[in-house]
């Protein structure tokens, strides 16, 4: 299969997008952006100086008063234009994601589509932002609520969905009248630069949307800056907890969507033919680098035959996954995004072996379609005989490693899953409505799948999360995120 044309052909140093201008950073700390499949340097990203970060926040602050008084209709017209531009550039944006992240082209196109859906839902702000009222709370006195924007919001983006995740927040922040500063992941910031080019072309006024490149230091400035009203973050639990704490001290709102360890429970009555592809997508989609990935496969039942049937089909299908460069349309799984990521995964595989799990499928020596360096590649890996106290069952691996557990019944499956510190996205595969209902009722997780392997809420629903998978009150997406980006002002009026 031929490789699709790469959109990034020349190595350029990325610029910040501040106050509607492309600004070159004066920083001498510059990182290479490496295509994880080919190992070629495709771009360079500066770690912006504190002054440059502050300038971006100031630009957002100065743009706020005028943007806040721009009518919601006029604001969403900008989003309509952005939506059209995103559609026109759909393929290029998708290929950029594959080049900078390594995911397959189907996954990148899926990510682009999801991002666009956020913009589409954001265009509904004139309705979504409406308050409510009640006449005659006492004779002749009326009371109503107005949702008002707050000011500048900062976003700290993850590497695993470099294009989509910032869009979980930015269209809603802007449409509600706030201004926004994005710090893309320094590992794969190019798609955010491409997005900013389209924001600019869509006519979103200078300062409303800003992109500033950087790392931990930039994120720290966001957390401490008095002009930032709130932070949205997607990343690890360790960092999310820290952000939540720091923002608590400085009085900022926070949405911190963090790590996960998701349980996929397969009941004996599950439709195996439909379940296996869903499990492949869940465990190995995006090379396991997603907070919605399946991590622990829990096969329910005392009967050896049904257990082996699921396990054999799972291992057999996983062993045939075509691994390679995602711009080849036949590839089903790309590389890890970085060498560090791969080393972390290899470390967990070693731990699994050391703690007594049985390695049924070993991805450490990868088979790759095409002539690419092994540097970031790991093939699908499956452990069986995993117990809940093993490290590979408890900690987020964030790679293509499945830990298979066996339990006697649904009660034990739910108890095992609820024993996890995380609560992001657990799923059950069954043909029993009763079992599904029981699972939905008792499982301690923000997103529940019933015969769905990737429980990714649509733009008009909140992206939920519990326990160590979420820090905050209101979630990203849906009505929650509208409330997050607005303050409820209550008016009580009496005319004498």
């Amino acid at each position, binding site marked *: 299969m031929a490789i699709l044309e790469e959109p990034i052909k020349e190595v350029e140093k990325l610029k910040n997008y501040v106050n509607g201008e492309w600004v070159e950073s004066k920083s001498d700390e510059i990182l290479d952006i490496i295509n994880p499949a080919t190992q070629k340097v495709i771009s360079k990203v500066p770690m912006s100086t504190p002054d440059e970060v502050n300038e971006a926040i100031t630009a957002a602050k100065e743009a706020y008063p005028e943007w806040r008084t721009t009518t919601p209709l006029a604001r969403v017209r900008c989003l309509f234009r952005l939506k059209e531009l995103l559609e026109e550039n759909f393929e290029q944006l998708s290929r950029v994601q594959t080049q900078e992240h390594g995911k*397959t*082209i*189907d*996954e990148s*196109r899926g990510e682009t589509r*999801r991002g666009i859906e956020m913009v589409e839902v954001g265009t509904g702000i004139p309705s979504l932002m409406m308050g409510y009222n009640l006449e005659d709370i006492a004779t002749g006195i009326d009371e109503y609520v107005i949702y008002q924007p707050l000011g500048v919001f900062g976003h700290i983006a993850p590497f695993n969905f470099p294009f989509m995740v910032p869009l979980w927040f930015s269209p809603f922040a802007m449409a509600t009248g706030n201004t926004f500063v994005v710090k893309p992941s320094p590992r794969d910031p190019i798609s955010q630069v491409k997005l900013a080019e389209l924001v600019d072309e869509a006519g979103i006024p200078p300062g409303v949307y800003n992109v500033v490149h950087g790392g931990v230091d930039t994120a720290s400035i966001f957390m401490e800056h008095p002009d930032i009203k709130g932070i949205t973050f997607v990343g690890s639990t360790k960092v999310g907890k820290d952000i939540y704490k720091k923002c608590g001290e400085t009085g900022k709102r926070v949405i911190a969507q963090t790590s996960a360890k998701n349980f996929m429970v397969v009941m004996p009555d599950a439709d195996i033919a439909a379940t296996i592809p869903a499990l*492949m997508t869940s465990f190995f989609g995006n090379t396991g680098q997603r907070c919605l990935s399946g991590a622990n496969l829990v096969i329910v039942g005392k009967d050896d035959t049904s257990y082996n049937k699921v396990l054999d089909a799972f291992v057999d*299908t996983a062993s045939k996954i075509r691994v390679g460069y995602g711009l080849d349309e036949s590839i089903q799984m790309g590389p890890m995004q970085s060498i560090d990521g791969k080393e972390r995964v290899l470390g967990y595989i070693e731990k699994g072996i050391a703690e007594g799990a049985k390695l049924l499928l070993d991805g450490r020596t990868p088979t790759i379609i095409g002539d690419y360096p092994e540097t970031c590649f790991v093939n699908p890996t499956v452990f069986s005989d995993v117990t809940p106290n093993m490290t590979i069952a408890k900690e987020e691996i964030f790679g293509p490693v499945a830990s298979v557990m066996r339990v006697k019944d649904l009660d034990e499956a739910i108890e095992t899953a609820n024993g996890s510190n995380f609560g992001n996205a657990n799923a059950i595969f069954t043909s029993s409505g009763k079992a599904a209902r029981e699972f939905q009722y008792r499982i301690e997780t923000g997103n529940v799948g019933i015969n769905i392997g990737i*429980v990714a809420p649509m733009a008009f629903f909140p992206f939920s999360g519990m326990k160590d998978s979420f820090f905050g009150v209101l979630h990203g997406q849906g009505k929650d995120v509208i409330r997050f980006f607005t303050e409820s002002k209550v008016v009580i009026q009496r005319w004498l």
Partner: protein
Amino acid sequence: MKLNTASEVISFTKKLEEDSATLYKEFSRKFAQDKDVFLSFAKENEKNIIQVERAYYGVISDAIEGCFAFNINPEKYSFNTELAEKDSYSKALNKAIEIEEKIIKFYSDAVEQSKSFLADIPRAFKMIAKKRENNRRIELKSLLSKEE
């Protein structure tokens, strides 16, 4: 090699439709008495590509089984579009019917494999298969019966 990913299958669909359009353009040149029919088929092929691509780009999501939805053997559905100068009209029509049946089979198999996973894509495939089955194949057979 089998086709497993949605993008591969969409590319393959596009190729089938383009090859089919090439064939009917050749028919329109060679069998001018029914030129309009064949040109309308070729035009419909182009529309089918748009319909399939629209469904794919509209529904593809990071959360669905895009990389694991198919197990298509493309060789089962491939066909040769070349017409020999000496081929009679009825021989050519028989060839077209045979090709149509292959394409219908491809769409039907693709629907069966992906209907639990890909939402609008199998729906688009089903519509095209139905259109071919109910219109184009019947029209080709009618031309053939007139010729015979």
